[in-house]
């Protein structure tokens, strides 16, 4: 009796083990794995306004450009970088090792990208960064591409423009100390001092600054013509509110920051009127596909897309062009070669890369916030600079090719 029970149990177990084999023996259509693209946006932390704006641009890219390329379906997986380099690196590892991403859309904070870059080198996975960052991530054995250029390319012309066109002689710097501030300011300082200007004071405020009162008070104490600042994310609100409340009546020049983000500028309202800021994108650009992008964006989000929304859209466009060029081959070498050979008409213009993976020609639109503080309505375009970066020794140096 006992023997029989053992026999029945053994047969049952064999049967259970065979079921999946029988299933697989049935003819099934082979399912091709989708191409996975990983995206890191900062949806929380001080850069959340920027991250959300970028993620919205990516959503529109999926709708307008589709989710199929080179005959294969594309799966997008998005993670929150939390404005924190450690978190961003963890998310990059997860996207590559667990999700199998073949390319990454890298987040806005330079510190996060500097944390991820060595890992991308190790894994040989291409990463394309939203907006610009410093040259360290594109020198050496690098796997980061910068379609919007290096940070100094954006601020070097601001320095030239401030001294030569706006007539400022003495400027104080107030910038976020984490990662990007000093790099943005280096470009400005070069341009401003080359044109005869003087940097009177340089202050880098810490992350999570809750009260800008002391910094605005210090600016009141200085004999200066203007303030050059970098106020990303929620810092813009702290600074401009304190500036208005303390009655600081000085012109402000900005590097990147929140000004080109229409909903943020609308929130800031009158506090930011008069600020001169650069942007890598204008919603009014007459470039292929731009009006389609703007219409789709406005339809979905009822707001004008920012440079970050456009930046994310452009990055996905570049990734698609690279995948088309490889015929859907997602190997590191094929993708790297395809990205290096990229020459694509995007919504911000024709884009291709230098051997250092930096956009060959970058355009920066310098604007002044109009009287109503509404970016779409009355921001005044002061000038457009077309720049490039030249390799001088071991460094990349910004060059202004043309002013318009």
């Amino acid at each position, binding site marked *: 009796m006992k023997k029989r029970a053992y026999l029945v149990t053994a047969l049952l177990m064999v049967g259970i083990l065979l079921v999946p084999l029988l299933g697989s023996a049935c003819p099934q259509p082979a399912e091709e794995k989708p191409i996975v693209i990983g995206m890191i946006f900062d949806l929380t932390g001080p850069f959340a306004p920027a991250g959300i704006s970028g993620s919205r641009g990516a959503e529109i890219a999926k709708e307008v450009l589709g989710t199929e390329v080179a005959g294969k379906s594309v799966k997008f997986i998005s993670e929150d970088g939390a404005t924190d380099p450690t978190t961003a690196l963890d998310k990059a590892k997860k996207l590559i090792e667990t999700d199998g991403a073949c390319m990454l859309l890298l987040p806005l904070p330079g510190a996060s990208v500097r944390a991820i870059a060595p890992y991308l080198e190790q894994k040989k996975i291409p990463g394309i960064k939203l907006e610009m960052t410093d040259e360290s991530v594109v020198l050496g054995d690098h796997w980061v591409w910068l379609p919007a250029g290096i940070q100094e390319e954006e601020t070097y012309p601001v320095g030239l423009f401030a001294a030569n066109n706006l007539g400022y002689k003495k400027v104080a710097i107030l910038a976020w100390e984490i990662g990007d501030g000093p790099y943005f300011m280096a470009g400005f300082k070069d341009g401003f001092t080359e044109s005869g200007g003087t940097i009177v004071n340089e202050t880098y405020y810490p992350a999570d600054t809750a009260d800008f009162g002391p910094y605005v008070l210090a600016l009141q104490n200085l004999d200066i013509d203007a303030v050059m600042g970098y106020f990303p994310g929620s810092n813009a609100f702290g600074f401009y509110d304190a500036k208005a*409340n303390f009655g600081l009546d000085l012109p402000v020049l900005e590097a990147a920051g929140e000004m080109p983000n229409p909903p943020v500028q609308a929130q800031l309202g009158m506090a930011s009127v008069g600020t001169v800021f650069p942007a890598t994108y204008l919603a009014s650009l007459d470039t292929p596909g731009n009006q389609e992008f703007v219409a789709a964006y406005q339809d979905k989000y009822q707001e004008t897309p920012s440079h970050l929304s456009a930046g994310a859209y452009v990055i996905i466009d570049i990734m698609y062009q690279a995948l088309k060029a490889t015929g859907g081959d997602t190997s590191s070498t094929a993708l790297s070669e395809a990205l290096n050979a990229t020459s694509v008409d995007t919504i911000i213009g024709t884009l291709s890369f230098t051997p250092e993976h930096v956009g060959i020609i970058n355009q920066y639109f310098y604007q002044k916030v109009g009287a109503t503080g509404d970016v779409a309505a009355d921001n005044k375009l002061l000038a457009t600079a077309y720049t490039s970066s030249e390799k001088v020794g071991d460094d990349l140096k910004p060059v202004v090719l043309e002013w318009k």
Partner: protein
Amino acid sequence: MEFLYASLLVGLSYGMVLFLIAAGLSFMLGLMGIVNLAHGAIFMVGGYIGLTVAITTGNYVLGILAGTLAAAIVGLFIERATLRQLYKQPLEQILVTFGFVYVITNVTLWIWGPYPKIGFTPSLLDGSITIGESSFPIYRLAIIVIGLAIYFLLWWLQSRTKIGAIVRAGMDDAPMTSALGKNLSPVTIGAFVFGSAIAGFAGFVGIAALGSIDVGTGSRIIFLALGVCIVGGVGSVHGALVGALLIGIVESLVGFYFPEVALFTMYVLMVIILLFKPSGLLGREI
């Protein structure tokens, strides 16, 4: 010299905002033994609701009332739904209230969206006055007055009323207080709701001084509030005020004269206090 006075005044006003933020937390932690990490999120609820009402109606006082009431309701929900089961269980309290930070943050993201919102300043308190060669916002002067008023109110409630005496007695020896015929349950609920209401009040009043509110505010504010509690000590209104003013003034002076070390100021103060007086400058032993 005028700039020194002006920067002291900036520090004083910032310290008063910190006091408003931390007073409720210190009260809950010191007198009730509740570690409420959702305090910053409750502050945020008060800020958002108050701001919405103030912008809609154009009335600052209605904004204060709405923010305070909303925070009190959220506090009541947290206490009744979870914390009443977890008294004297600090680890569980930390986990549960930390969970509420995520819930509240995501709900605020749904309702108010991702972009920061600038605080509401009534026209009466708008503008600035001149002190020497510096301008100083009138609203910040008002914050100093409001902070002092709240300080005296809390001190009076805690030290001069029967309810305050019951709360303190209940924290020191709950069985004995109950044996004396005092029903501690409504007092405990009321105290928690009151602490939350102060957070909501601070959320609306404070953001107008500090600039803006966004969905990350709750997570950032809780660190400031805990810093004040560590420096000043918990369970004492005087401790919360002294800790907040010390941090506010030192941070402002450092931000003005040595901005490169401003990031560490509060933490250095916390380390020094923890080394030499672990219960804080004026705190109760817990």
